[in-house]
Every structure is written in structure tokens, then in C-alpha cells.
């Protein structure tokens, strides 16, 4: 038997989580869709700002147009949001950071750094469910109503932008920051967490995956959080958060079957995007946290040519003592895999060349050219082959 949201909130309250639930009412019901603010009000002006940002986002070259992937993610959103699905517009944004955000006008951004890091569909659903929790509870709208003037709000937003170095992250994030900035007091966060868990559970996902998302992100890097700093700047996330989520998830699990994680379905859905996401992660050149990420993905998804290449590339980029040898060993172990990208041969050639093994390096460069004869760096590689 699945708990209703109201029943679950009451149950949690009775389980001495009163502090978290102090705002919950006994006659709790999911709020009705809210009305768009009057256009001549300050709130209406800010709403128009969000519409404008969404319009920009819609035309951004960083929004993924892959219909199948968009349909897949939209399916998850609709399973979680139920009859509110029609109010939400999903944008998959090519950005190598772990983040998702929901604006009160229904714009949901999901960054590819999150898609890369989620181990399965349930983990992606956990993050989306959390954002829908904010949306359903009107957290952002509540804060909108608190904004007494646009100048005060502009200052508010500036502070938020500065807080996460958004000047460098750029325009594409502004809508997310606008959205996320309006809410996220600790009570809001806890409430969104609980709603997210409930929505996951109701949609048939294993709620334990919500705790694992945070656990994984924290494990990825103490000072980088797998690129999740942008998220953490607006989602205060103490390390105890995943423990609290785990406790709550276990209670939900006791109430019914554990739920699905849909790992296979998830991996198939994002398969075409993986090479680009891995390349974007490597381009960040934060090899320590990238290595932890790739090793975890290998643990969860099994070895494949792309992830082994990525691991070797991160080791080579770190270039610490013994890293070149370790990278070579990883590449040698992945030799013969059909799914290993041509770049693996090029990387191996450079490592062999550095070791002074010019014959093997020449062979590896030649193999790269056979696989990628029209690569933009082919003239340089031919030069190596001819001069080694």
C-alpha cells in the first residue's frame, strides 16, 4: 500500500520529525495550480523576465534537440508530476555540471552533467522529483510574493549569481538561478525532498536512490562535488542529507515493494549522448573528481571502451607519478574492444612515445589514422608517423 502524501507527512510528523514538518497541516493537500501574477505587478514583471529567459533558452545552441531523449525524460517528468505534467516544459541543456532547476513558470532545466552522473532512471527521477516538489509547493512563488520591488529582486539575483560564479557559467544558467534562488530555505528543501521521495515511490521507483545520488556526488570530490557546486550553492546540502533521505526512503520501502531503478532502460536512453558527455567532462580537466566519477560509472555500468578510454585520459591529464603507466595499462586492457574510440589509439601512441617506444607509438598512431583518416588532427599525426 502506498502512502498518500498527506498520510506520509502525518506519519513522518508522528515519527518525531516535527521540526521538518512543522509547516505541514493535518488537512494537507497538494496545492492547486497557481495563477499567473498580474502583469502590472512586480511579481508579474519578474514572471515576464522568466518568460524571456525561457525564450532565450529555447533558442540556445546548448539545448539538446534529440527527440527520443527528450521524450524519454518528459516521460519521467510526467510519471512524477501526474496531472501537473502539462505545466512543465523540459529543457535538456548541454552543461557538464550536476544540476536541475525548476522556474515557477514551469521551465525545468536538466543539465547533461546530471545525466552523466545518474546511475539509473530512479536517480534522475529523484532529482526531478525534488524540483517538482518545489514547483508543486509553490516555494518559488511564495518567494516571488516576498519580493517587494524589482530592484530588490535584481540585487537578490546578483548576489545569487555571484555566489556561484555565474558570470562565467553564463546566461544559460540564469533562468535556473532565478528559479532556484526564490526558494530553498532548509524547510523548503526538506519539504521538496519528502515530496520528491513520495513522487518517486508513487511512480514505482526505489526511493533509496534519492539518498544514493547525494552520497555519490559527495564521494566524487570534496571540493568539486562533480561539478555540483552550482547546485549546492542554491541547495544547501549538508553531508547528513543523504542519511536523512535514506531514513525516510527506508520508511517508504517498508510500506511497499522497494521499487524499480530501471538502470538498463536509462543507459539505453542516454547511450547516444554518452560520448559527448564524457568528452565534456574530460574537457573540464579536473582529473581527480573525473577519475572518481569514471570509476564509479565502470563499477555500476560495467567496463566499456568509452569509459576505459575516459579513465585513461583522466589519468594522463592528471599526470602524477605513475599515472602514465596506469593509463597505458588501462588502454592495453581495453585493446580490441569495438566500442573503444579512436582517440584511445592516439592517447596510447602519445604515452608510448613518451616512454621512448617509438615503434609501438608509430603503430598506434597508424591505427588511429586508419580509424579516423579524416580527423582534424590527421596532418599532425601523419607528421609524427613520418618523423618518429
Amino acid at each position: 500500500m502506498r502512502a498518500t502524501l498527506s498520510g506520509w507527512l502525518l506519519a513522518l510528523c508522528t515519527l518525531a520529525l516535527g521540526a521538518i514538518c512543522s509547516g505541514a497541516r493535518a488537512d494537507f493537500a497538494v496545492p492547486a495550480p497557481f495563477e499567473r501574477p498580474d502583469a502590472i505587478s512586480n511579481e508579474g514583471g519578474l514572471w515576464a523576465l522568466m518568460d524571456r529567459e525561457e525564450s532565450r533558452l529555447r533558442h540556445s545552441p546548448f539545448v539538446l534537440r534529440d527527440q527520443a531523449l527528450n521524450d524519454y525524460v518528459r516521460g519521467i517528468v510526467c510519471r512524477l508530476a501526474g496531472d501537473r505534467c502539462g505545466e512543465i516544459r523540459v529543457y535538456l541543456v548541454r552543461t557538464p555540471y550536476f544540476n536541475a532547476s525548476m522556474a515557477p513558470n514551469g521551465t525545468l532545466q536538466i543539465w547533461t552533467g546530471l545525466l552523466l552522473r545518474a546511475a539509473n532512471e530512479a536517480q534522475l527521477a529523484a532529482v526531478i522529483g525534488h524540483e517538482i516538489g518545489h514547483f508543486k509547493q509553490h516555494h518559488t512563488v511564495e518567494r516571488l510574493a516576498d519580493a517587494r520591488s524589482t530592484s530588490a529582486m535584481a540585487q537578490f539575483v546578483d548576489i545569487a549569481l555571484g555566489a556561484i560564479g555565474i558570470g562565467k557559467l553564463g546566461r544559460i544558467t540564469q533562468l535556473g538561478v532565478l528559479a532556484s534562488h526564490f526558494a530553498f530555505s532548509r524547510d523548503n528543501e526538506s519539504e521538496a525532498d519528502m515530496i520528491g521521495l513520495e513522487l518517486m515511490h508513487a511512480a514505482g521507483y526505489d526511493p533509496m536512490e534519492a539518498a544514493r545520488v547525494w552520497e555519490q556526488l559527495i564521494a566524487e570530490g570534496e571540493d568539486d562535488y562533480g561539478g555540483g557546486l552550482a547546485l549546492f550553492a542554491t541547495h544547501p546540502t549538508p553531508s547528513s542529507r543523504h542519511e536523512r533521505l535514506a531514513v525516510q526512503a527506508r520508511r517508504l520501502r517498508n510500506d511497499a515493494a522497494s521499487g524499480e531503478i530501471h538502470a538498463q532502460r536509462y543507459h539505453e536512453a542516454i547511450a547516444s549522448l554518452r560520448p559527448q558527455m564524457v568528452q565534456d567532462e574530460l574537457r573540464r580537466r579536473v582529473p581527480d573528481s573525473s577519475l572518481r566519477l569514471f570509476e564509479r560509472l565502470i563499477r555500476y555500468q560495467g567496463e566499456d571502451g568509452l569509459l576505459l578510454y575516459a579513465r585513461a585520459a583522466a589519468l594522463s591529464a592528471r599526470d602524477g607519478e605513475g599515472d602514465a603507466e596506469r593509463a597505458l595499462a588501462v588502454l592495453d586492457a581495453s585493446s580490441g574492444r569495438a566500442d573503444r574510440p579512436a582517440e584511445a589509439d592516439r592517447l596510447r601512441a602519445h604515452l608510448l612515445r613518451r616512454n621512448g617506444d617509438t615503434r609501438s607509438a608509430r603503430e598506434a598512431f597508424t591505427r588511429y589514422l586508419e580509424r579516423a583518416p579524416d580527423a582534424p588532427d590527421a596532418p599532425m599525426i601523419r607528421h609524427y608517423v613520418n618523423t618518429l
Partner: protein
Amino acid sequence: MIRSLAVLLLSASLAACGTVFQRASDTVTVGGLLRVNTAGSEPWNRFTPDGSKHREIWTRHGLPLDTLTFFVAVKDGEPLDDLAEKSDKAPHFRARMSAEDVVALTETMLVGRGGHFELAKLEPAPFAGHDGFRFTFDYVTRAEEVPRRGLGSGAIIDRRLYLILFLAPSGLYFDEGARNARILIEGTHVAATPR
């Protein structure tokens, strides 16, 4: 009154962000080590960013429109992007790096925090009388979403990286600026050995 105030503010902001702009003369020494013959090129304005150890920037139409950046004698273990925030952990140049690695450093510097980068060509080419490389690429940063094009030319000489990078919006600004940039690149020589 307002116009005067605007001029004052603009002057103050320019002064705050680097040395005063100046036009380059026919032969110019960059970073104390490179001699650049500017004959045949349209005039450029010089700009040395505050705090940079090895970078000088030239521009023809203004920094947002075109930049020709000289990275002069970057030491082993130093970040190419030495003006990056410390928290960005800019990757370091290593003397044993390949031309592909230098392209990767450029890529991270421009779009490491998100964006498109597509290498168009990387090939061997002499630089300042040494064996070197040159490359061209297209990129878009998330910060502005303007399609830009770049060309780079460089070499690793005595374990130090010398790299000249020209960046401009694709189209007129790049095409016209690249022609001038190539004149400067071809007229570049190492004038002194770093201490």
C-alpha cells in the same frame, strides 16, 4: 554632463582592467622575449592584463570583438590560463606535452565550463624559426552563445610554451583579423632566452 561622466567612467574602467592601450609600432617586443614584425598588418592596440605572468593581448576592434593573445615562455608546471580563478584549477602546461595537449589546454581555457569546441585542423608548422604547430577551431561559450573562430600557432622551445592565439566572432571579424594575425605570426622570432 552625462556624456562627460560616461567618458570618465569608461576611462576609469579601462585603467582598472589593465595598462593603457597603445598602438603597436613596426617591430615590437612582446613579453621581453618575442620580436614581432608588424609591417604589412593593420594597426593593433596592446593590452597587458594585470597579474599575468606570461600573457599579452592585442586587439584591433576591442576586446569583445577580437583578441590576439601572446603566451610567452610559459614554464613547465604553470597554468596556461594564469588569470583563471584559483578555484577553477586551471590545468598546467607540461614541457612534455604534445600539440594535441596544447590544443586541449586551449579548449579547457575557452570552454572548460561548458560550450562547444570543434577542432577544424591541427598540423605541423614552423613557429619563430622552430618546429611547431598551428590549429584552427570553432567554439561557442555558454557565457555569450556567439559562434567564434580561433587560430593558434605555437611551439615548445627549451621546455617553454610559446603560443599566439587569435579569437574573433566567425565571419568578418575573424576573416579580416586572421589575415592580420597571420602576418604577425609569420613575423615572430624569439629574441632572447628566458632567465
